């Protein structure tokens, strides 16, 4: 009985906060847009009954998603941006994590602090700060012009480059922290053993360190990839008219176009796409836990 309660509470919580809203979204995705409060029909009413209500629902909005190329192009656009920025974040984050894990014991707490420090400022404000840095007359262009590297200001803000810079900047700590914790736990005598057995330092790194930090790398990649895929703030503030990301499209359908049924259909499809990496991530976590036991 006690065990049942223990399981029932978190599951009740999940049911209330995930499944119920999800079904509301699915329901709206089967409705039609209207100028009314709220902005879609049919509304459920007890007078007409559930039969009429269900008859008025259709899959028109999902069909529409397939006819307009904007949607799949945005899904693909988000996927490309998420994959590339995850890769770049790994490329930058790994050496940082490695350096931290190999730093003298007494420095590590401070280094860790420095990674977490940016979280003390609002995410939104940090992205706004990047607008000031990357704009045509911004700090970066002024600096580059001053040093004489360029003679004409570069257009970075409102392009995809700015989106990459924003995502890498914002999600770097999520890559560094899991890799750091994996490297930190690693037994360094294994490297010595590899070197004793004739490995060069580089081969020892590839054959011993990287495989042992594999779980940290996978966790870091998922922690960057999943939010980057649905990212809305960074592409809308730093991106330009050419930036196609599904999070932005979703927001626009919902707020600017006031097309809630279509926005809900986009959200349902996005969720289905995201479920795949999330399940993979879960499975990896589970395996890791089993391996540790």
């Amino acid at each position, binding site marked *: 009985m006690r065990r049942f309660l223990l399981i029932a509470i978190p599951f009740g919580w999940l049911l209330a906060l995930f499944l119920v809203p999800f079904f509301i979204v699915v329901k709206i995705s089967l409705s039609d847009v209207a100028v009314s409060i709220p902005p879609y029909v049919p509304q459920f009413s007890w007078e007409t009954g559930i039969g009429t209500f269900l008859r008025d629902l259709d899959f028109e909005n999902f069909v529409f998603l397939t006819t307009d190329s904007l949607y799949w192009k945005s899904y693909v656009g988000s996927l490309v941006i998420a994959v590339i920025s995850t890769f770049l974040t790994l490329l930058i984050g790994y050496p940082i994590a490695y350096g931290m894990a190999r730093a003298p014991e007494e420095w590590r707490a401070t280094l860790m602090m420095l990674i977490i420090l940016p979280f003390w400022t609002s995410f939104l404000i940090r992205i706004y700060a990047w607008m000031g840095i990357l*704009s045509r007359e911004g700090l970066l262009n002024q600096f580059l012009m001053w040093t004489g590297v360029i003679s004409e200001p570069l257009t970075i803000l409102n392009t995809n480059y700015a989106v990459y810079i924003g995502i890498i900047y914002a999600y770097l700590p999520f890559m560094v922290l899991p890799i750091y914790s994996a490297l930190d736990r690693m037994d360094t005598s294994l490297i010595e053993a590899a070197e004793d057995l004739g490995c060069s330092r580089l081969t020892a790194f590839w054959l011993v360190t990287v495989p042992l930090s594999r779980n940290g790398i996978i966790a870091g990649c998922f922690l960057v990839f999943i939010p980057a895929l649905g990212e809305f703030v960074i592409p809308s503030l730093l991106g330009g008219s050419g930036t196609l990301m599904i999070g932005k499209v979703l927001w626009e359908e919902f707020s600017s176009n006031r*097309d809630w049924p279509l926005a809900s259909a986009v959200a349902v499809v996005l969720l289905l796409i995201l479920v795949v990496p999330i399940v993979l991530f879960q499975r990896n976590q589970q395996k890791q836990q089993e391996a540790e036991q």
Partner: protein
Amino acid sequence: MHRHTLTLAAALALGGTLAMAEEVRVYNWSDYIDEELLTKFQEETGIDLVYDVFDSNEVLETKMLAGGSGYDVVVPTGTFLQRQIQAGAFQKLDKSKLPNLSNMWDVIMERTAQYDPGNEYSVNYMWGTTGLGVNTKKVAEVLGENAPIDSLALVFDPANMEKLASCGVHFLDAPTEMIPAALKYIGENPDAQDAETIAKAEAVLMAVRPYVQKFHSSEYINALANGDICVAFGWSGDVLQARDRAAEADNGVEIAYNAPKEGALMWFDMMAIPADAPNPDGAHKFLNFIMDAQNMAAASNYVYYANGNKASQEFLAEDVIGDPAIYPSEETVKNLYTVSPWDAKVQRVATRLWTKVKSGT
């Protein structure tokens, strides 16, 4: 009313030592008021004012139609107001609580009655035109001294836009204003209500979209003022505010506003009270405060938009009432056009068109 009862109950419960402060929540356009007026309202009435801003009619409409926005006063543009009244989003004004209504300008009220018959739901806040904000020096550098800075050709002729792209162009993210402008450029009726005519705007906009750096309705003020962009298709007063910010910063940037000679859109932003406003009483007090001649003049002097308040005109600064970009001459007014809301079907066509233009697919 509910809130008053609560206040009373709280006051009684705590022996009158602590009373819940009355609160009015206002949702207005960004960069659209002299903030000193907000302080003044709180001092004069003792009511707490919560003031939030938006930069898109569409976003406001979504909030209104979702219901329960929690705002007491909102400021949609006439065309949107008309549609939202039909959806039942607003409550009728209690004119007995608005003695300052007598200050309003009959000429403007006649025009706003087009959206709100009898002006029963709304009072005009500001009105203005949509046109060309130009960094005069940079545009002259790129297009030469004879650049068509007072013509729609500046932003709708791809030959001009290709060159301007190097110094940066922003368009409003407002399909209800950009599509009529594109139609005007090709000689169609900007107030067209049929899907076929509206579809003609697509070719015009798609031809220039590769050269548009961003579609956004408020960033262009600072971008113009800082010299980050050289042309913005934007709102009259916003461009004039950019002109002032550049002058204050003394950064050598010179900004000018021109209503396109082919014709410019004239719009009216209307203050209205949502049907589910938590404090309609306070909302009326706020409206009456804003309609005070001196307060309205202070707002216009600050944001460089014309208002619909006749009595305020004697308090307006000379560079506001005397500027034909703000208070156009009768001759210019003839060249301005207004638009009416699209029906649901045409709306979806326009929305698709606009999404296509913004995303390029």
